[in-house]
């Protein structure tokens, strides 16, 4: 490529313009590869089922435990005003209805039975119920879910919390105010 500059009484000078170099994307590719490896390592299908729900207030804990390997997870979401079952968030009713109505409990029991029946027999011991409940709910509702879950055959029950290493300190401060 070249450009021509001309002035009166002077000779034309062709100034050579350097070729535009192609953009080197090798370094970008390096970064993307690192990100990709990191994401693939961290992503987990089970994690999708136990994501933090934005509209739920979780209790906080110092200790945490890992979900058992190859767990067959059935999540239950217990909000102040509704109970949602499974990955598909099937609406069960309100927590109060769950405690008061035998029909609602039967629906829940049938749902858990269906989930259990879909698990291969050799993996029944991996059946796992994860309860995500609002911190301000009375324990009676949680106990009801746990009771139905264990009666159906869930041998592993986990409560979802948020990790906070110094909740005792903050609780102490809050209670002194």
């Amino acid at each position, binding site marked *: 490529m070249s450009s021509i500059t001309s002035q009166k009484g002077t000779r034309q000078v062709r100034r050579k313009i350097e070729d535009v170099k192609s953009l080197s*994307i*090798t370094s*970008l*590719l390096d970064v*993307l*590869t690192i*990100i*990709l490896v990191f*994401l*693939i390592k*961290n*992503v987990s299908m089970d*994690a*999708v089922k*136990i*994501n*933090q729900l934005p509209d739920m207030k*979780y*209790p*906080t*804990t*110092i*200790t*945490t*435990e*890992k*979900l058992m390997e190859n767990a067959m997870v059935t999540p239950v979401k217990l909000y102040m005003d509704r109970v949602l079952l499974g990955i598909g968030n099937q609406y069960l009713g309100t927590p109060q209805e769950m405690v008061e109505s035998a029909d609602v409990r039967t629906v829940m029991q049938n749902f858990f039975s269906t989930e259990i029946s879909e698990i291969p027999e050799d993996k029944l011991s991996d059946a796992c119920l*994860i309860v*995500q*409940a*609002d*911190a*301000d*709910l*009375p*324990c*009676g*509702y*949680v*106990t009801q879910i*746990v*009771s139905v*879950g*264990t*009666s159906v055959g*869930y*041998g*592993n*029950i*986990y*409560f*979802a*919390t*948020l*990790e906070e290493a110094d*909740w*005792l300190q903050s*609780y*102490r401060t809050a*209670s002194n105010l």
Partner: protein
Amino acid sequence: MAGYNPSGARKVYRPSEARQQNGQTAPQEPNLVPIMNLFVSIIPFLIMMISISQVALIALSFTSDGGGGGTGEGGGGGAQAEIVEIHLMLKELTQAELFPGMEVREPDKTTIHKIPWLSEDVYDFDRLNSLLIDLKEKYTDTAEIAVIVHPDVLYDTLIRTIDLCKDNGFVTVHYRNPKTQYIY
């Protein structure tokens, strides 16, 4: 190219000629565009799937005591092992010796530590924590503890209690329903 001979004469290959680089094209950069396309598609997908703030979990053990607590692992059948019990209560009921707060019963069932709540729904977890440290020193062999929770107690209180138990070495926490219920 090194092996091309337009004269048609028989070409003699020699080691020295093979090393000559004359006539070879300059090495080209690999075409990274398809890989880039793939990455640009995969990375947003993975970012969508990944959970940045993943919830923590605490596991439970169950004791079948007729209270509906379940029959999971660590149930221990009918006869229950003598372990420390923490009773979480919310309402005052003198007849049933219930009060708002926590009651820690040692395995001998005669030593009972009462920890009343500090104010409404504010339990004295500091005192519970200190007590659990002392109990762990006293009962070093056991890692089991039972939490008996009344239905009206907040879920947050239950989880904090279980958490303190696990943090102080009582890693197997049994979840039980109370035998004494509130009378409404």
